């Protein structure tokens, strides 16, 4: 004990002697974080304030200057069915797709997390969907879901008739969701696999003394250890899923009608087809607030705050 203390004091003295006096910036705490902070401030503050300013303007079309409109755009938001429809759909869509992706991703990670030949190959193959360009995927989806496409051909062979996927709001939503899940499950798989790999074997060997049952080991060791990483994955996916635009836009352009109009698509259309950028900006800030609420709710609900609080 005393040895440790003495060594510690000596060590600290040596460290202190080596480091120059920098006042508040003495420790690495600031320096490690500084580049990221400076970059983020530099590139996101102006756009944020500009967008805020835009939200207070009324756009009168492409060619004419903006007019100051105060909070009129925000007022308009609250009476607009389109806004709330898109928001509701986006929240539901994100919740469902992310939940499925996590479960499937975890399942895949567990499947792959064992020694076998061709493991590297399998892992790489399972990652492929992540690298598919969403735009190309949307176009590909159009043929895949077409009347003469493989899915309908298979359905006709089994059930006798296919589904006109894009002509029905719910089938179109399912079609988009399927592509989304296909593309993003590997994301969850990758992160969770990295997490699983980091769990040392010793823990399992120690646990084997208590029980030989696979399921209990999974439930009592793997999942709790993986919990922060699962939380992280859900969070990252949720934030992205709420903003999704590429896949539904390329596949259905938000249709049929407004069935697949995610909030991002709504904003994009409002800004660049309607040239109503003031309103689009205001809607974006509404969205920002919603996402903040959702994220905070998730973290509080999962009691992840303390987990994230941990420093040393």
């Amino acid at each position, binding site marked *: 004990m005393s040895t440790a203390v003495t060594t510690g004091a000596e060590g600290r003295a040596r460290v202190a002697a080596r480091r120059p006096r920098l006042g508040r910036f003495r420790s690495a705490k600031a320096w490690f974080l500084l580049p990221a902070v400076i970059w983020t401030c530099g590139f996101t503050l102006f756009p944020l304030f500009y967008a805020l300013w835009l939200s207070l303007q009324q756009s009168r079309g492409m060619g004419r200057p903006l007019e100051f409109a105060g909070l009129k755009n925000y007022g308009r938001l609250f009476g607009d069915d389109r806004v709330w429809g898109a928001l509701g759909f986006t929240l539901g869509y994100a919740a469902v797709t992310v939940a499925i992706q996590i479960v499937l991703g975890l399942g895949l990670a567990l499947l792959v997390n064992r020694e076998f030949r061709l493991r590297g190959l399998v892992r790489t193959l399972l990652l492929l969907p992540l690298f598919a360009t969403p735009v190309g995927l949307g176009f590909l989806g159009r043929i895949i879901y077409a009347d003469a496409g493989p899915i309908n051909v298979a359905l006709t062979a089994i059930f006798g008739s296919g589904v006109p996927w894009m002509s029905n709001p719910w089938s179109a939503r399912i079609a988009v969701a399927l592509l989304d899940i296909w593309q993003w499950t590997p994301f969850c798989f990758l992160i969770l696999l990295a997490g699983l790999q980091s769990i040392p074997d010793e823990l399992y060997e120690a646990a084997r003394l208590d029980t030989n049952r696979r399921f209990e080991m999974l439930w009592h060791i793997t999942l709790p250890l993986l919990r922060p990483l699962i939380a992280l994955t859900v969070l990252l996916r949720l934030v992205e899923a709420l903003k999704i635009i590429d896949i539904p836009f390329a596949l259905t352009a938000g249709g*049929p*009608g407004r*069935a697949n109009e995610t909030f991002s698509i709504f904003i994009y259309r409002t800004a660049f*087809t309607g040239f109503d950028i003031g309103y689009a900006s205001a809607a974006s800030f509404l969205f920002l607030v919603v996402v903040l609420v959702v994220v905070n709710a998730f973290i509080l609900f999962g009691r992840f705050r303390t987990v994230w609080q941990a420093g040393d």
Partner: protein
Amino acid sequence: MRKAAFLASAGLMLLPAVGHAEGLVTRHPDGSIELKSDVGDSITFPKGTLGSVIEDAWANGTKPYDGITVSVVTLNAGPRGAISGGILPWQKAWEELSGQKLQVVLKPFNDLAPVIFNDLFTDTGAYDGFVPPMVFLGDMKDKLVVLNDYMCDPRFPKVFTNEECRISDGAERGMSTLMPSMQPLFRWGSDWYAVPWDADSHILYYRKDLIENPEVQAQYKADTGKEMRPPQSQQELLEMACYLNGKDPLGTGKNLYGVMQPGALNSQLFDWYKDFADSWSTMVGGAKDGFRETYHFDPDTMEPLINGPGNVAALEWMKQAYACGPADFASIDLGGHFNRFVQGEAAFAWSAGDIAALAEEEGSKIKGNLGAMVIPGSEEVYNARDGKMVHVDQPRPAYNVFGASWSGEVSALSKNPEATYALFAFLGSPTMRVWNVKWGFDGIDIGQKADFLPPNGTAKLETYLAGGFDKGDAETVSQAIHDNLAGPTFEYFKIPGAAEYNLALEIALQQTLTGQLEPQQALDGVAEQWRSITDRLGVDSQKEAYRLTLGLQ
């Protein structure tokens, strides 16, 4: 010795003329200039047609726009696709001709508007010129160069004839070159903003091997007691289409569809609706009998007319028509619509001249069987004075309800407006038009007077045949488009915010077609949205703009 020197010096003097013979541009001794496209053929501009700047420069062996870079943005359909296929084959020849460096930036169809908007709104000016659809004109015009003076300036390639140039009023110019109903398209009031190029006009295509097939006709008569003929009304069209839907009268092994129309978003769904809905709600020249003459708004109050009884009935019709077509219509975009009709999958389609061009290409299954006509009118028309739908014995077509009509516009932010205009004038010149008519792939649809076969125009049948057209099809299409454009002018919707109004309509249409809304409900929603758009953009300025596009001052 002296003879040799003479020959040598004569040779050297001729060198400038001969010197340009390598490469794609050749100046002939008589002053005409020949350019080779990258398709392999060439066109020749007679002396006087390319404008003094270019011709004088070439006479002196210099390049007229040396050192200038011109950036133009347009639709991306590849080097053999619509619109981009009209510019790209000539890019190198133009660069050689003008000395410019020409950058043709291609953007996807759905993304063209955002790119243009961002460029103009932020005054970035990354592009010297645009080749967009005319529907954006109301929004873009404040940032575009007015072309009135350029168009008759002898320095530039000729677009109008000398007689037309003597007319100083922009609103009256162009009547000899352009069909009367096309003429207002490229200008705002009396200011011209675009060089006429593509001429979209929507006509009804049908399969001659079905509709004019005696056996099919006999069977139709036997089954329904009615005559099968090129439909004289939309109601007839619906009957025939639904009769043929699901049948296979020609024994091809695949059942036919009645209609093959796009149902996807971003495929101009609003146009496919307005194409026939207009004759349910308006009658040009019918105001004295109480019929409306305007389609979108009431020109006195700017009140939307989109949810009137005529439009609702038309939407019901559209639902029935689409029901007699593919079930996955919501995934049919423009490409699917063109290709599937040309592959013989359906009996009817209404569309722009692109189908005519594609039908004549290799791989088309309907070449030689292409029927074309003006989109017929409706037997039921809404009478505003009496406040109800009335039956009309002689359905009157609404004639041309325009499509996009892509044409070159010069950005006011450009540092080289003249060089940019020269490019567009080159592309829109009569000489180039002959090439456009010949090659269907370039998507530059026929519509100017010179494009039609006699007796309607001055085009030669050989030009069409050289482009691969079937003789009968060429005559049919030329006649149909001419008739369409020869009718009374219909309003072309290009007021500020046109894209936004159209988007609201498009979404509502798709919601109705897919069963999410009822027609009246859907169109009421559209009217509501249109009102709020008009309010936001300014009722008075919108009214003024709308009346201007109608020709009412």
